[in-house]
Structure formats: C-alpha cells, structure tokens
C-alpha cells in the first residue's frame, strides 16, 4: 500500500524530486544540476560575473565546455579571420583554464555541437538534470534526462552553485502510435507535432514523447524529436529510457563501466514514468499518416506535408492572421501554392537537430540512389555535428560520395543553423535546411529565407535544385539497392 503514491509518477516528477535541494523563500525549488554544458557564446559574461564577486566554480568536474557556434567550418587555422570570433574563443580558453573546466577544442577529436558531443561521449544519461546556455539542450531528453536551456545569469548560477532556482513544469504526454512510412523521418514527425500543437502550445510544459512509434526510433532519431520540443514552446522534451537507450550508452567513454553499468540500468529503468502516472495533458498522434514535411513560413510550426498547398489565412485563428500574412510576404509564397518544384539556392545539412551520423547516412542514401550532382547554381554543404561524426562518416567514405556529387564537406560546428560563423545566406536566398529554425534572418541574411526539412529531403532538393518529394526517389529506385 505504501507504494501506491510512489507508483503514479512521471519521469519528470522522479528526476525533479531526486534533484530538489530545498525550497527557496520565493517558493521555487533549488534544483541540483547533474551536467552543465557551456559554449563560447553564452558563457563569457557568466565568468566575468564570477570574477566580479570573487566566486569559484563549485563543481568544475560537472561542467564540460566546447566551442561550436562561432567556429569556421572551412579554414580553422588560428587566429580566426573574424577577430570577434577569435576573441570569444580566447575568452573560453582563458575561463576554462582559470576555473578548471574541461574544454574540447577543434582538433581535440572531441569538439562539436554541444548537444551532439555530450551524448556521443556518454555524458548524457537517463535520470540526470542537464542545463546549458542554449535552448536546444532539450535534445538530451532523448535519454530520459530533464534537460533545458538557460540564460547567462543562470549559467553563472550553475557555475557558482551547481543549482538553479526553478519552478516545476506541467507534463504533457505525446503518444505517437504506429510507425513512420518509408521516406518519413523523425524530423517530419516533430515538424508535424509542432504544426498541430503550435509554437506556443508547449509553454509551461515538459513534453513526454511516448508510444510505439517513438520507442521504435533510434537514439539519434529521438534526439531529433526532443531537440525541437523547444520549438513547440516546451522547455524540455524527453523519452523514457528503454533497451535502445541502454544499448546506445553501453561502452561509451563516460557511461558507467563494468558492473556499474548493470546497476545503472536498474536505476534508469526505475526512473521511467510509471504506467499509471498522472499527466497534466495527453495528446495522441498517428505516425503512419505522415508524409515528408516542409515549412512554408517563418515559424517552425508553419509546416505542411510536401504535397499539400500553403494553407489559407482562414486555417488560422483570427488573432494569428497578421502573423500569417507577414509569413507569406516574407517567404514570397501564396496561400494555395504548392512548394514542390520551388527552386532553392542553398541546401544545408547539419546542426544539433540533424548533424549526426545517421542523418548523413540518410542523405548519402539519397545521393547514391539519385546518382546526379548538385544542381548548378545551388550551394550545398554538409557540416558534421562533431569531429567524431566527421571521422565516422569519413571511415565509411561518405565524404567522398558527397564531394563527388558536388556537396561541400566541412568541419564540425553549428554553421548555418544560426550563421554566427562565416556560413551565411546572402540577400533573399532561399535555403532548405535540416536545422531547427526558419525565423526571419535566422540563417545570416536579414532577408534570407529557410525551409526546414529532413536530411533526405534536403539532399534531394540540392540535387534537383528544387523542393522535391523524396518518396518518389525511394519508390522509383527501390529495386536498385536493398534498404539497409
């Protein structure tokens, strides 16, 4: 009987309770942060504040630093050509040295987009609290961690105290039934969920992604889904850990080793949501009904199936229509227009959303089946999410395939996802991108335009020079090569 209360909790509840240090006078919780990740953009001011107050880093071994946002992905020789980027790199080098924090730099073999390196090195584990001065920290929830983005003042708080003052979120269970069709990816699934639940529908919630379609996904696919929870307003998204999670972690550098791994699996299994857990909200989706998705507007929730027309204003509530009109005008699309065949200028494959090995393999499969080269006039480039991803892809010869077909093959970084480095759109260029945000100006030109899509869809658009439906390629040539 005494277990009755204990058996109605979500993973979110259990992780929160495990990390709650005390209740603050404001009523908020002082929450212990198990893993803190930092990068060069949102940390320098935090270290400056520590110096001003004469504070030390409380748990330097629980913070990992890397550089990803500003690093060039072509010429990485030092000093960087952009003196501001060089200054930021020098700042994080100095800060990590002074405060005793591990820093993975380009050339270390371990550098990369912060949300790609922590999982691949086994640092991200189920049941942890993870914070980083970056909204896409939600990615780590794929492992059953509670992971969320913070601002620089909070980076300072974590450095100084390994804790944050926070209020609990509500939990929405998003159950996805069925299985994704061939040519439909985890990226399409999350773009569909965003379209239905909207960019603000998740404000105040953590999203628990559940159901058979989610648990069939690989860890890398789950990371794609959780990565974009923030695009739906949910500060964190997570998947309950299962055998796929444990298989991924086994043997990774920072995962528990030997007998400790078996004990860890027991603990991780217990941290998953109970079957009868109580949720603040529940939604159900059918994976089988989906087609490849593309966005047509300036918010990640403005997505459509690739064969659908751009929706009319009447499809939106009245108070949204001014924003919808702004999206049509900015993108240069009309309601009712189909985007299939729309010429593109740039194709970008990479980012914390889709910069992992399986993403590059999926793009490579499209290139092999298609057989052609990148359309003349289109700039297509591939930015592996980490040095480890780059190494693994090169070991399979993917770089040679991409280069032979007219793609550029770059070094690891955030690159044109947010265009803080030299990779930027020019003027009103239209990019199709595997990244996560199609905001106005996001990819480096104040007038630049972005279509979000999956790696296969972006690869095919690069080859065709226009928005295309990857299912036609996969179906028409399915005799050519067996599906791996």
């Amino acid at each position, binding site marked *: 009987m005494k277990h009755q209360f204990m058996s109605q909790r979500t993973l979110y509840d259990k992780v929160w309770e495990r990390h709650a240090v005390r209740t603050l006078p404001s009523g908020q919780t002082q929450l212990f942060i198990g893993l803190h990740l930092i990068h060069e953009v949102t940390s320098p001011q935090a270290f400056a504040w520590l110096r001003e107050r004469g504070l030390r880093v409380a748990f330097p071994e629980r913070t990992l630093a890397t550089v990803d946002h500003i690093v060039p992905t072509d010429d990485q020789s030092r000093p960087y050509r952009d003196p501001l980027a060089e200054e930021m790199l020098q700042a994080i080098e100095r800060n990590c040295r002074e405060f005793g924090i591990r820093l993975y730099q380009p050339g270390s073999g371990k550098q990369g987009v912060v949300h790609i390196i922590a999982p691949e090195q086994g640092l991200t584990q189920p049941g942890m609290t993870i914070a980083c001065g*970056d909204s896409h920290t939600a990615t780590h929830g794929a492992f059953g961690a509670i992971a969320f983005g913070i601002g620089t003042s909070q980076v300072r708080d974590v450095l100084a105290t390994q804790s944050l003052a926070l*209020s609990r979120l509500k939990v929405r269970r998003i159950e996805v039934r069925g299985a994704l069709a061939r040519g439909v990816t985890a990226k399409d699934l999350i773009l569909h969920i965003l379209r239905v639940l909207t960019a603000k529908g998740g404000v105040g919630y953590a999203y628990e992604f559940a159901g058979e379609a989610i648990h069939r996904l690989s860890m890398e696919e789950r990371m794609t889904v959780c990565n974009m929870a923030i695009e739906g*307003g949910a500060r964190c998204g997570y998947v309950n850990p299962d055998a796929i999670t444990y298989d991924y972690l086994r043997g990774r550098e920072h995962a528990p080793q030997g007998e400790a791994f078996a004990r860890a699996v027991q603990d991780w299994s217990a941290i998953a949501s109970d079957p009868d857990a109580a949720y603040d909200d529940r939604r159900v989706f059918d994976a089988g009904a989906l087609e490849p998705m593309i966005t047509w507007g300036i918010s990640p929730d403005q997505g459509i199936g690739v064969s659908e027309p751009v929706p009319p204003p009447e499809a939106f509530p009245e108070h949204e229509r001014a924003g919808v009109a702004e999206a049509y005008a900015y993108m240069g699309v009309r309601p009712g227009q189909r985007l299939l065949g729309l010429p593109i200028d740039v194709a970008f494959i990479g980012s914390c959303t889709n910069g992992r090995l399986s993403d590059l393999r999926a793009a490579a499969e499209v290139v092999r089946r298609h057989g052609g080269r990148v359309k003349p006039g289109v700039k297509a480039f591939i930015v592996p999410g980490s040095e480890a991803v780059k190494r693994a892809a090169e070991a399979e010869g993917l770089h040679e395939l991409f280069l032979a077909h007219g793609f550029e093959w770059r070094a690891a970084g955030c690159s044109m996802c947010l265009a803080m480095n030299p990779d930027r759109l020019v003027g009103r260029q239209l990019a199709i991108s595997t990244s996560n945000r199609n905001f106005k100006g996001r990819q480096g030109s104040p007038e630049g335009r972005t279509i979000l899509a999956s790696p296969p869809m972006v690869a095919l658009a690069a080859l065709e020079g226009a928005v295309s439906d990857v299912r036609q390629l996969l179906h028409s040539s399915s005799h050519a090569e067996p599906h791996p």
Partner: protein
Amino acid sequence: MPNRILEVSGRAVPVRGNDIDTDRIIPARFLRCVTFDGLGQHAFADDRAQRRAQGGLHPFDDPRFAGASILLANANFGCGSSREHAPQALARWGIRAIVAVSYSEIFHGNCVAIGVPAVRVSQLDSERLQDLAERAPTLTFTVDLERLEVRASDGTSVPCQLAEGPRRQFLSGSWDALGELLEGLPAVRARAAQLPYLRGFA
C-alpha cells in the same frame, strides 16, 4: 532590500506580433561579443532596418516612443534561442518591464534574473494597451506587482498575472537568485552525495 521591485512606471512602446523570437530581438551576428555592453542600440536591428526600407518606422525608432520603459507585446514573446542577450538588449535600450500575453519559458526566466518584470495579460487587454499607447504615447503606464495590475494615467486598468515565485522574488528583492543559491551550497553538496550517478550507482 535595495533591489525590491514593487512597480515599474513609464511611457510604453507597443511592438505588435505573436511569436517574436529572440533572433529578431537581437540578431545572432551581434552575439559575437564577450560582454553585454552596447547591445541596446541593436535591439530589433533587422526589423527596424526593414521597416525603414519600407518607408515606415519600427516603434523602437519612432520618436513618439523615445524614452519608453514598458514594452507592450503579444503572445509567445521571446521564443526561440535562450540568448540572454535578448532581454539584456531590451534593458539596455531602456525597457524595465514587459507586458505580453505569454512568453517563452527561458526568456521569462532571463527577464527575472536581470530584474525586468514580465507580466501576462489577456489577448484582448494586450491589444487594448497597445492601441492606447499608440493613440496617446505620452501616457504613463504602471506595472504594479503588488496589486497585479497594469494601469495607465488616463484611468485604464487591467489585471495582470505573474507566477507567485518570480513575484515574490521581485517584491522581496531576491530576483537575482545567486545569493540564496549560495546559501544553499552545503545542502547542494549533501544532495549531490546521494545521487546514484555521482556514487557510481553503488
């Protein structure tokens, strides 16, 4: 407590639109810096340039709203990137409080951490307040955290909301949480000692 914030008064500047993301509040190229100094002049840089190019004026360039300290926005304000540069840029431009229908969670937390109360009002009231500020830009608006209302000097008054935790932080002057978090450091160490993953799952 010297840092208590009971209310913020000043003229208001309306910035209309749902889902205004932090890339729009401060475009990424301005994040190539190691301090927040000087960000104020770049707030809404691209939106302002585009409005000028179209022959118009963004509210942040409109002389009628010069010196305003209360930002009137709509739904999901500050969505997207976690960059604290966004509220820092607004604060350095002169914004000391924000009134909107809703905010992204991270943006809201950043506002609290830098002492900028960001309160919620209904969709209808957000538009009413924006209309009012446009009609009468010289009115003084007050965001009252004790009574949880937004007033204008013409007598208009609407209720507003702010979660109890941040509200208490502003009213008590503890919105900069670091002091209290540091007091809890011994308890943090005790908690850490019990966490399975910091004990080798023993």
